[in-house]
Structure formats: C-alpha cells, structure tokens
C-alpha cells in the first residue's frame, strides 16, 4: 500500500570492546513480509536485531521504523512503537505465572491491585486469536520448552507488536512444533504484521520466508527474494565461497581394531534439573576407529547423556564401560586418566577458565600431571603451551595471554589441543557441539582432528545440532528423542529426511 519500508537500517556498526560485532549493516524490510536474516554463528545477526529492538545503541548508522528515525532508542520506546523481540534464550520469570509474565511491565490493574483475572482473560483471548495455546494460570517453571516459546511470542503480541523479531526460534522445537510456529507466523503476516526471522538453517528459510538478507562477518552481504533462490546461492553468500553442502567425506573402510568396543553404555538413566529421566535407558557401543554421531532436536537428553559420560552428572542407573572397565562411580579426574576426552558444548562455561592464561588452560584437567607436592612445574606448563600452540595453530601464539582475549575459534582450539593433543590419543572422545560459534577455517581444522583421532583408533561420540555435520562425520548415527535412542542407522544411509522423521518422534511407533 505504502512505499515506506517497515524497517530501514543503514550503515549500522557496533563494537563490544575490541570485538566488532557489526561493521556495516544495512537492511530494508517491507511491510507485511516474513524476512529471513541469515548468517553463520557470530555473523552479527542477533546484535543487529538487538540494535533494532532498542537493547544496544549503535556506534554508527541510522535506524528507521515505518519511516520514523529511531536511531538509539531504548527497549521501552521500541515496544511502544510496536517492535518486539523473542530472544534465543528465554526471558521468562519462572516463579511467575504465564499471565503475570505476559503483562509484566504493562500490568493490568484495578485501582491499586493487579487485575489477575482480567490479565488471564486477555491472554486467553490472545491465544484464541493467534492459535498459540497455553494456560495463562500455569507457572512458567512448569511449562515445556515449546510452551515457553509460545509465552514469549504472546508477550510481544500482548504489547501490540506489529514487527516481530524471532532469534533462532526453532533451535528448541521439534519439526511438528516448527510447522505450528510457521502457521502462527503466516497468520500474523496475513493480518499485516512484519516478521524478522534470525536463523542459519537453509531449509527453514526456503520454507517460510519472502525475502532474505545474508550477513557475514558483521556485514550485510546480500539481499534476495526467496522465490528463485537456491540453497546453494544462500550458502555461498553466507560463507563467501563455494561450499559443499553437508557432503559426506568417505574415509577408508573402518575396521574395528579390537573385538570389544572401546565405549559401551548399557541401560543408562540420567536425571536432569527439571525431569527425572532426561536420559531413559540408553544403550549403545562405540568401536575403535568409529565416530558415533548423535542427532536430535536440542533438549532431548543429549546434553545430559554427554555430561553423565564425562562424570559431571550423576547416573541413576545403568553402566558405562571404557575398554571393558566400569566408569560409573569414577570421578571426572579418574575418567580423564583412563583416556576419556571431553569437548564440552559450552566452552565459555565448562571448557575454559577465561581469566586463566592459555598455558594454564592447556593443563586444566591434567594439572595433577604437572604437580609435585608443593608446586606446579611452571617450566613444563610453559613448554607444553609452546608445543600445543604451535601444533594447533592457536593465535595469537602467546601462552601468557588470558584465554578470554582470544576469538571463539581459537578458544575452541585451546580445548581441542588440551583434549586431543596429548602424547597419546584418548581412548574415547566426547565431542559436544565441537564447531558451535567457530569460523569456517576452524571448523575444517576441528573436523580434520576428529577424523585423525578416529583413524588413530579412538572411539568418538559426536553430538551436534548441525545435522549436516553429524551426517558428514559419522560412521553410524543415532537419533535421540525424549531421552531415548530411537534409532541407529549406518552413516552412509543417513540423510536429513530419514533422520528428520525420527527426530520428530513420528517414526517412533514403527521403531519400537
């Protein structure tokens, strides 16, 4: 109807300390479209959208919403202008009810008192109108992940948002829930709403979006209409060069070097913080020279399984054996000494002490090998650092720098160097999201290291949210759903389509 764009960002830049999250980003989004903002991890998508939502003030550039200059506004002004953002990490207060969360900051009152009944009725009406069903009287702490996300969207719509920004909304959803979300978004579009979808998943973009903007290394590098674009085009724009999409690299025939498996898990049950059986009677065995991939929608027990194997979480029952020796009851330290290596999914929380030097981080978990009764052998700590920094090409190559000063890719290299770079190959490697938030060069490096470990006879367990990565690397692929392994297929037979139906739980009935 009108030529004014819903959103017009021009030349936005934003730095956090020495890190330039966005260098120069420009973006035009028309009224009433579903716009996908694509890019790899760390490309600056979330930061750009947070600038738009008033959470960050840009260092340079201008922002306009519906033709009005809004550069540097705050959250409150953004909400008032009808711009709402649903964050990747939920912003919900678990001790409050759904209705209380929805009205927080925009409370419905009668006199001095909160009008709880009125708020619940309003939320219920909103639920009916949008198809986002959730009981407004329930405590948020009791909701499932999918329900929690519905509350997040309700929060934004309750404030009358006409422009809805969703940051990686499908990471925690199963495929049917994703379809449900698409239905809601299409309804919004039909009612004149504008939707911005931050994602790095190609199939989703093709599925739902009208137009696409691609970001790479803090810059917007391309804008295209979804109709008439192929996934390969988008991928090329994202990475900046030709890429082989999830192409499987075949290695030589894998021959188990010994008769018994290196890692054997039997009937393992693990509790989580919220559920009793996050992992429910899981059994599998991994041979030497094998990469055992675990696929699944996040939150189906993969995290708990890996943490239990690493000794960070208590097993309720079942057994875990490494080279025929029982591991349950062993401390983390004892597991490391028996040859268990762990690349944790959250390197900033679990992988590294960010304030410790590179050298100190490179011995974490092995500190007892560098210690006498009264002192750590600082000479050996330093020489170990020199060796590893060279072998793994960690930059900048200075062992005295704090790990927090390095880029994400180089931080991950510290973890990989520590876990895989010892004098002997580990017996079992637990690799959880080994390439998350890492640049392309480092991804290839990390994949090569995992393959090298496999070829050297290690048993590798690989968990990744990136289905392409699992398919490309794994000898066999298991799918976890609802805390169970619902199928195990040969790596050569694994495709996104077949794994996908297992990941949804749709294929469960025929499987069991």
């Amino acid at each position, binding site marked *: 109807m009108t030529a004014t764009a819903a959103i017009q960002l021009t030349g936005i830049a934003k730095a956090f*300390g*020495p890190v330039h999250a966005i260098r120069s980003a420009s973006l035009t989004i028309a009224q009433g479209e579903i716009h996908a903002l694509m890019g790899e991890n760390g490309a600056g998508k979330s930061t750009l959208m947070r600038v738009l939502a008033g959470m960050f003030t840009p260092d340079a550039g201008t922002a306009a919403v519906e033709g009005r200059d809004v550069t540097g506004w705050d959250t409150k002004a953004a909400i008032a202008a009808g711009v709402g953002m649903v964050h990747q990490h939920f912003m919900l207060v678990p001790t409050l009810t759904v209705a209380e969360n929805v009205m927080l900051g925009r409370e419905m009152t009668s006199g001095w008192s909160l009008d709880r009944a009125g708020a619940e009725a309003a939320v219920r009406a909103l639920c009916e109108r949008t198809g986002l069903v959730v009981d407004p009287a329930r405590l948020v702490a009791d909701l499932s992940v999918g329900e929690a996300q519905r509350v997040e969207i309700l929060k934004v719509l309750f404030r009358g948002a006409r422009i809805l920004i969703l940051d990686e909304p499908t990471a925690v959803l199963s495929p049917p829930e994703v379809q449900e979300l698409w239905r809601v978004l299409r309804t919004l579009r039909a009612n004149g709403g504008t939707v911005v979808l931050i994602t790095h998943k190609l199939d989703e973009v093709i599925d739902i979006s009208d137009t696409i903007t691609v970001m790479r290394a803090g810059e917007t590098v391309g804008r295209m209409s979804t109709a008439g674009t192929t996934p390969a085009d988008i991928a090329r724009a994202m990475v900046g060069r030709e890429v082989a999409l999830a192409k499987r690299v075949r290695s030589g025939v894998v021959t188990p070097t010994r008769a018994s498996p290196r890692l054997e898990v039997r009937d393992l049950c693990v509790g989580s913080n919220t559920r009793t059986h996050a992992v429910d009677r899981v059994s599998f065995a991994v041979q030497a020279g094998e990469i055992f991939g675990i696929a699944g929608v996040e939150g189906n027990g993969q995290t708990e399984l890996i943490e239990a194997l*690493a000794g*960070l979480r208590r097993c309720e029952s079942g057994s875990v054996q490494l080279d025929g020796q029982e591991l349950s009851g062993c*401390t*983390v*330290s004892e597991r*490391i000494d028996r040859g268990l290596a*762990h690349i*944790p999914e*959250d390197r900033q*929380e*679990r*992988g*590294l*002490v*960010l*304030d*410790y030097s590179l050298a*100190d981080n490179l011995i*974490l*978990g092995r*500190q*007892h090998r*560098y*210690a006498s009764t*009264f*002192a*750590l052998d*600082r000479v050996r700590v330093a020489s170990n650092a020199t060796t590893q920094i060279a072998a793994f090409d960690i930059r900048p190559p200075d062992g005295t720098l704090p790990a927090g000063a390095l880029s994400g890719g180089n931080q991950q290299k510290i973890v990989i160097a520590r876990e895989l770079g010892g004098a002997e190959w580990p017996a079992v490697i637990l690799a959880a999201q080994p390439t998350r938030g890492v640049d392309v060069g480092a991804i290839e490096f990390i994949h090569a290291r995992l393959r090298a470990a496999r070829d050297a006879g290690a048993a590798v367990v690989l968990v990744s949210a990136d289905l392409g990565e699992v398919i490309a690397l794994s000898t066999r692929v298991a799918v976890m759903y609802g805390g169970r392994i619902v199928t195990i297929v040969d790596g050569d037979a694994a495709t996104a389509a077949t794994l996908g139906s297992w990941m949804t739980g749709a294929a469960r009935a025929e499987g069991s």
Partner: protein
Amino acid sequence: MSDRATRWDEALLPPAIALAIAMVVGDVLILAFGQAPGHVFGMLLEGTWGNAYGFGQTLYKATTLICTGLAVAIPLRAGLFNIGAESQLAAGGFAAGVAGILLPAWLPWPIGALVCVLAAAVGGGAIGAVPGALKARFGASEVIVTIMLNFIVLAFLNWIVAAKLHAPDSLHTVEIASGAVPRFADVSSAFRGSAANLTLALALSLAAACWWYLFRTRGGYELRAVGLQPGAAENGGVVLGRTWFRALVLGGALAGVGGVNYVLGYKHYYEEGFGAGTGYMGIAVALVGRNHPAGIILASLLFATLSQGGLAVNAIVPKQMMEILQAVVILAVAVSVPEVQRLLRASTKAAA
C-alpha cells in the same frame, strides 16, 4: 607490558581514591568538633608511626588483621564470602588458651607455642568447617551460615568461660602455663609496653605461604579456577564441594591463628570479646588488599593505623571517628573498584 601496568593501576587507584575521600570526611568530622584537622592527623601519625610504642601497637593490631584478612581472601578466591572470621578468631584464641592452660609449665616455650598455634588453627578451622560442609552438602549460603555462626559461637564461648573456665572475679580464663610468645619488648626496650610480639613473624610467613599456595601449587590452581569459573573447574576434574570445604576450613584456620596474637602474645589468657570486630575488619582488609597476600599486609597496616590512631586522638576527637573513616574507606573501595576497572579498560581501549 601495558597489560601489567594496567593491573597496577587497577590495584592501586581504588585505595588511593578511598584514602583521599576518607581524609576529606575526616576533616569535616574533626572540624565539627572544633579541632584543626592538621593537628589531629599529626597526632594520629605521631601516635602510630612516630614513636616505638605506637608503632608497636600498630604492628600488634596489623598482626591479627593479616590473619583475618587472609581468612576472608582465601575463600573469596574460591568464590565464597567468609563473614565468620570474627568467631573463627575467637575460637582459635580460645583453643590456644585452653591448650596453653593444659600444657605443663616446664615445657619450653617454642614447643608449647607450637602446640597452642596448632590448637588455634584447629579451633578456627573447625568453625570454618561448618559452613564449608553445609555449602558442599546442601548448597547453603555461606554468607548467612557464617553470620549466624558468629552469634552462636560467641554465645557458646561466653557461656563456657562464664560457667566453667573463668578465673575468679573475671571474664577471662586463668593464665596459660606454657606457650607464651615473646614480645618484641623482650628484645628491644624501645617497644616497652606495646603488645607487638613474634606472632607478627608468624602472620607474615602465613601470608607468604598463602601466596605460594594460591599461585604456585596445584591446590591453589584448582581453588582459583573454582572461584573464576566453577563449571570449567568441574570439567577439569576439580570437585567443587571439596574445594569449597577446603577453602573455608583454611580460612577458619587462618583466622584462628590470629587469636594467638592476643592470647599467647599479649594477655596470656583467653578473654571474652577480645576480637572486638577484628574479624569483620578482615573483610575490609581483603577487599582493599584485593585478595592478594601482599596487598593484605599493606591493607592491614592501613587499618591498624586507623584503629590505633583513633586511640591516640581520643582525648580530643572520639575514637569512633576512625570507625567512620574505616567504613568510608571500605565503601569507597567497593564503589571505585568496578568503576576504575570500567574507566581504565575504556581508556586503554580508546588508546588501542
């Protein structure tokens, strides 16, 4: 290079700012009493660093503060707030006093003192073990447990001294038979009358040992990792609960040894309420000293000077002025540490 320089700025600027603010507040308070600030501060310096007795008293007060400062700093390095130094100090002093009473009088003092010091460490460490165990086992907040334990332990010690152990017509125990630590006055007559004693050497060596432990041993490596990033430490094979327990027991033992200064070095008996806030002041010492043993020694001297200086000027300005100034220093440091960090990092960023 520049990195090192920044860290020195960061460590020294907050206390400098704090002292400047404290001086201004002090001036106002002194003027309110109709006195000349220059005169009062002169008296303060004369009464602390200007003569051997005052200096001795300052050293004596600094000795206990070094111990309680370390008692706060070690757990804080592991991410835990030990507010229990007050009762750990009392328990350590009590244990040293009881050990000294029980020992035979003919025992040579070095052996007696050693036994008493160990008793003090065990006494203080036992009190530190309670919040340590509750934190490790149940995740109970160590802040609350140590505060509550202060009241419980002090009430218990009051009862046991009042009901069972006091010397006739007094609120202290009988004199210890063996284990008394020589005063500096025994060596040099200049210190005559002052309470400074060999415990100072013990406190200084403890500070050195703490430095070595924190920065040169595996235990210290693990303890600091737990304080900085518990998740990563756990993944590195460190058991969090065990480290918390160890840090609080160690803290308690260090505070406990502080009790030796009064009981073995000064009065030669345990007396109700001898700590008089020294334990709480340990929090200020650790804060101003930035949890570093060298910083803690300097901060102890600062707070000891204020405390002894209060007595020196009490005739014309109430000694409580020094409590106000101590509070101002703590507040100013607490406020300026994050602020100085922010400003310095912003300026290095701009320069880069």
